[in-house]
């Protein structure tokens, strides 16, 4: 384990800390200790507090702008060994994995529109490519829904799967990230060779491997082990936002891309991608061949084809909305949520002054525009919308924000790229911060 290098083993430090704390089963939470009645003898406030904490947990993350690998290439390795039929996760490990993988793929393409995914399954000691790297979510989901593709058998082979993924990923252009996500249920693996050689190879090719284990941790790579169904989903979805750029091998490049126009014809033509005849389609601006779907790569001339909304979909990773802060009762002057008109609790009277710290005011403030929002809007704005309605609704602040949104990242990124060494350490710090949070 000690000879593993950071690119593969990004969580190493966090993991060491974990070990000092003790094993997972030694550290348990007594959730009933937290439940205490408030002054009125009711549990409502404490329960609300816990719910709110859970809601906010997800988005209190690092919003500083770092360079992110937006063009991603990822292989998902799914274990199809017999142990996947265990029913310790409901309804069974396999079914849960498949349904979460489907959700994962949809969410992944939603946030990383011009990225690609491929699926590898491993069973009976061999690894098999279910789908090639491609940018169309439906291909993968269809493959997963086909029951024939997901029959379980024998033991998995981690090494074969990793090697298979590596053999494709090494051809990925240097400006794209190379990632493997392994969902592994088995405790053993049936490998032809020493797996550490494979891992060293992966490190050399700067391929980042994340593993989600369904059973227990095995001493190969460090990874997250699921505690229950919800935790499984959390672990999986943590991988969706594009990773910060850490490795020095990552090259920034100008990529030539075409923006095809959509046409509808009266006579059918053959499409380049499937060889079917179609009436409509997108025309490659370089070779004028017809392509069915975007984003893709022209099969004739190899030009990357995207539409401008695809690019715009990634922009929110670059200009994230700052975290909102909770408003204390002392400054809780607003009566309703700025964006959804939800009426806030009014300031409690002095009689119940004692419980002021207990109940939160339910107001969350954007530090840029000083508007107050309710918790649901707070979550929605950070998770889905990626816009602050307050900043956009005020002329002065919106102007500042929009101007700064184009200048801030440039300055911070500029700092990072000043020298290779400082760039590296900064990127790592960012990763560390993310792990801590």
């Amino acid at each position: 384990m000690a000879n593993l290098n950071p690119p593969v083993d990004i969580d190493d430090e966090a993991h060491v800390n974990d070990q000092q704390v003790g094993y997972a089963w030694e550290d348990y939470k007594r959730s009933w200790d937290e439940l205490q009645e408030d002054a009125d003898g009711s549990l409502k406030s404490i329960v609300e507090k816990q719910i709110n904490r859970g809601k906010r947990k997800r988005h209190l993350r690092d919003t500083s702008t770092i360079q992110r690998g937006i063009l991603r290439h990822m292989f998902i390795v799914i274990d199809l060994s017999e142990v996947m039929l265990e029913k310790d996760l409901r309804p069974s490990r396999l079914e849960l994995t498949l349904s979460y993988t489907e959700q994962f793929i949809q969410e992944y393409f939603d946030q990383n529109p011009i990225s690609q995914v491929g699926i590898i399954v491993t069973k009976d000691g061999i690894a098999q490519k279910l789908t090639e790297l491609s940018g169309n979510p439906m291909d993968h989901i269809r493959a997963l829904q086909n029951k024939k593709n997901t029959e379980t058998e024998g033991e998995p082979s981690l090494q074969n799967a990793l090697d298979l993924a590596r053999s494709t990923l090494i051809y990925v252009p240097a400006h794209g990230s190379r990632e493997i996500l392994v969902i592994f249920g088995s405790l053993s693996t049936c490998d032809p060779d020493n797996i550490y050689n494979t891992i060293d190879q992966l490190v050399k090719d700067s391929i980042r491997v994340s593993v989600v284990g369904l059973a227990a941790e095995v001493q190969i790579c460090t990874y997250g082990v699921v505690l229950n169904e919800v935790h499984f989903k959390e672990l999986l979805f943590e991988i969706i936002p594009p990773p910060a750029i850490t490795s020095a091998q990552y090259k920034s490049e100008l990529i030539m891309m075409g923006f095809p126009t959509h046409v509808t014809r009266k006579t059918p033509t053959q499409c380049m991608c499937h060889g079917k005849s179609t009436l409509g389609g997108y025309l490659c601006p370089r070779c004028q061949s017809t392509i069915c779907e975007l984003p893709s790569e022209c099969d004739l001339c190899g030009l990357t084809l995207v539409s401008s909304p695809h690019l715009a979909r990634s922009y929110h990773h670059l200009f994230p909305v700052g975290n909102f802060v909770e408003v204390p009762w002392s400054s809780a002057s607003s009566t309703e949520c700025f964006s959804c008109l939800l009426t806030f609790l009014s300031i409690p009277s002095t009689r119940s002054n004692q419980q002021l710290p207990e109940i939160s005011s339910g107001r969350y403030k954007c530090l840029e525009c000083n508007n107050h929002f309710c918790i649901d809007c707070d979550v929605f704005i950070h998770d889905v919308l990626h816009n602050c309605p307050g900043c956009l609704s005020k002329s002065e602040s919106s102007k500042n924000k929009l101007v700064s949104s184009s200048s801030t990242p440039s300055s911070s990124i500029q700092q990072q790229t000043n020298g290779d060494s400082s760039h590296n350490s900064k990127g790592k710090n960012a990763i560390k911060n993310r792990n801590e949070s």
Partner: protein
Amino acid sequence: MKDTVSVSEDESNLLVLIIDTNPFVWAKAAASPGGLSFDQALSQILVFINAHLALKHDNRLAVIASHVGVSKFLYPITEANTHLSEEMDSTNDSNMYQTFRVVNQHVTAGAINLLKNVDTQITTLDQSNSMDAGALSMAMCYINRLLRADDGNHIKPRILVITLSSDSPLQYVAIMNCIFSAQKASIPIDVCKIFGDETVFLQQAAHITNGIYLKLEKPKGFLQYLMLTFLPDRYLRTTLCLPGQDQVDFRAACFCHKKIVDIGYVCSVCLSIFCEIMPQCSTCRTSFGQSSLMPTGGLGIVNGVQPYSITPYTI
């Protein structure tokens, strides 16, 4: 593309109406031959709103004004602001349906207030820009709240943008974010363009969210367009033949010269688009390696690697 969410006949419709109240463009629209003034348009919008509410007893409505430099809810308004419309309450017609009266009052009072208060910041602003992005964001938050409170999924939201202003490039990212979150929640964004040039952003919004984009040929017939095109709910839309877009411009404008390009160069870090090769990205200051890019780009040599010749690329 059909509506991906199943809609049935007995569902309540939430219409979020975003009205462009920018006085400068309205003045231009009124002055143009065959044009429409804001007063006329507002009274026609009120008729449309009443028609929407009359269609079904549980139809819901929100009206947001996208004004110069500010966007604001006109309806519903919260208790703190009710006094504004109470002052207006001069006509008490017992023959009028109560809900209509309240809605009409609130919307008119809100619009008048906005127009009264505009004079302060005009000089600092580009006069043609309304706060479309802010209004859309508020609409999304409001819809999100109602959907959250709605257990049985009975509310089917849609957004109608009544606009005259042209695109504001500063708001591009924000508008796109709104469009994508609307697409995710399958909320159609309809656009009714009364006057002026085509807005590319809103055109894309309608296309991506499966809404209707309509540019009025005769602004005088505004009400008729509203009634015939935008009144039918999402259930009826599946059976009606509504105006569609012939062509959607998906080409991008380069960041360096604002030229529309069909083949461009994209920074791999921040995805900025350029029309020519640059040594350094002007947005994120990344220096680009010399290694790979072949500007003339013969067949097959795009990124300096074999483009998936070993693993055939499939769609």
